[in-house]
């Protein structure tokens, strides 16, 4: 878990970045705090032809079918109003209202790809539900697969390749989580309080039974 501005590791549940003080209020001041109405494929920069958009749309649909809890969204355009692409992706996924996403898939279950043709860069941002299952390294692997296509200006093909790669990673993680959910829960569990630490010391650091996880049917 990193801060989108200073790229420093921050602790779970930090209201503001303890290193640089970054929070969404700062981005709201730049871009506005109202919700932004978007579709899953928002080619604002016009990087894809209509036929290519069809291919990307079908890739996004396929992703939604394979992962019934999740959705994948694409935004092409520059971050107007300043801030780097990480901050913009963070703000957009928090403020976007996706028109073509069912209500049972909240933004917490979303993954957003932002492609900025002006700064020639791309980034991935994901919702809280995916926090235990995705890492920055995973997103780098996906972006690397699409890198060659992006360089050549084949953004639609690159996006399709990226979605496929992400699908492979997530399918593996889903299988691992089915076998060993505690391993992933530990990544996002709140830090133990001081009293809890003292209790563990008294009990000789015995493993506390993990509470059962809720699984969306």
């Amino acid at each position, binding site marked *: 878990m990193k801060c*989108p501005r200073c790229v420093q590791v921050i602790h779970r549940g930090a209201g503001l970045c303890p290193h640089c003080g970054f929070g969404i209020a700062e981005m709201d001041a730049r871009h506005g705090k109202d919700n932004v109405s978007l579709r899953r494929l928002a080619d604002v920069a016009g990087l894809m032809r209509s036929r290519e958009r069809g291919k990307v749309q079908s890739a996004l649909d396929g992703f939604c079918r394979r992962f019934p809890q999740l959705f994948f969204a694409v935004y092409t355009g520059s971050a107007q109003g300043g801030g780097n692409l990480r901050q913009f992706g963070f703000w957009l996924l928090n403020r976007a209202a996706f028109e073509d996403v069912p209500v049972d898939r909240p933004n917490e279950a979303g993954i957003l790809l932002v492609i900025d043709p002006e700064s020639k*860069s791309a980034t991935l941002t994901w919702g809280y539900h995916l926090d235990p299952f995705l890492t920055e390294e995973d997103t780098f692997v996906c972006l690397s697969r699409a890198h060659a296509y992006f360089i050549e200006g084949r953004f639609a093909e690159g996006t399709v390749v990226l979605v496929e790669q992400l699908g492979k990673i997530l399918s593996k993680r889903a299988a691992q989580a089915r076998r060993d959910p505690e391993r992933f829960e530990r990544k996002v569990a709140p830090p133990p309080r001081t009293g809890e630490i003292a209790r563990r010391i008294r009990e000789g650091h015995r493993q506390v039974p993990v509470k059962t996880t809720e699984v969306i049917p």
Partner: protein
Amino acid sequence: MKGLVWMLSAGLAAGAVKAPLPEWNAADKTAVEKGELVPGLSLLGHDLPEEDAAAPAAQVPQPTAEELAEKEKASTEVAEKYWDAYFGERPTSFLVDPQGLLSTKDARDRESFLKYHAGDSKVDLYVYLFDGHQSIPSEAREEELVERFFSEGKPAVVVYYFLGAPQKSDIYVSPQLADSVSAAEQRRALISSVEEALEKPDALAQFEAFCVQLSIRIYWMERAAGLVTEEVAAAPSPRRAKSHEAEAKEESKIVVKAKEWGVQYGPSAGIMAAAILTVVGGLAFARRRARYRFPVFEVAPRMGGAHAAGIGAVISFGSTTQSPSSQRNDVPDYLGL
């Protein structure tokens, strides 16, 4: 070298001594000043004697147009003594060169190639060789000769080749081929062979290239005429044909063995293959239809984001020469710029 220079200078000096210098007197000087005498005029403007200039020109009869044409014809046409050898009968060799334009060795080489072609192909190739500046006498009608001499026996392609001037060559086919090989196809074969020949620097190499290319084109003529029945017969090399036969024999053994195996293990192998294909297909189908679900954990919001705060990598695609790793952007943005 020094001696040569000395001798040359000595000779020049001797010549300079021997040449008489002009002598002038006062009267000459006066005449020159008045313009009556031009120095050297007596040498340059020496007229012919009167009697020579006045003599009538000798009465030589001018050659007539017929005589000129005859002379021209006689100089380019093949000498009459070779006519019988060229056009008197069906040639006994594939290379017809009664004038001996090729050396013995070259003639033997070309003849052996044409023989090899005849052994390998169902269409013979006869080449009448003339010199580049020569022309075929008008009395010999080439098409009629071909019809007369080559209407029987193996089909043949007859070429009149001019050594050093392959572009003058002409092609004819025997009556057996005339129906199946069109005139256009004949011209194409000839043009192709001439082009091949013209790429070579000297006349002999041109002739060799011409024969080889025409031999190749004759193979296609054979196919067009439906004379090729077996692939082995059309193979260009007899040695290769032999090896093909040997391979065919080997293959036949292999085929026999394979048939035995097929009879013995065929049904079980087929069943096993079908089972494997079914399993693989089923797995692929199941994987395609698979739905992946994740357990949902409580995650405390960060940095005021109600829905998301998962910050992934940023990658730049500005440079075509740098790797994705080197274009990974991990630079902090403390000032929010």
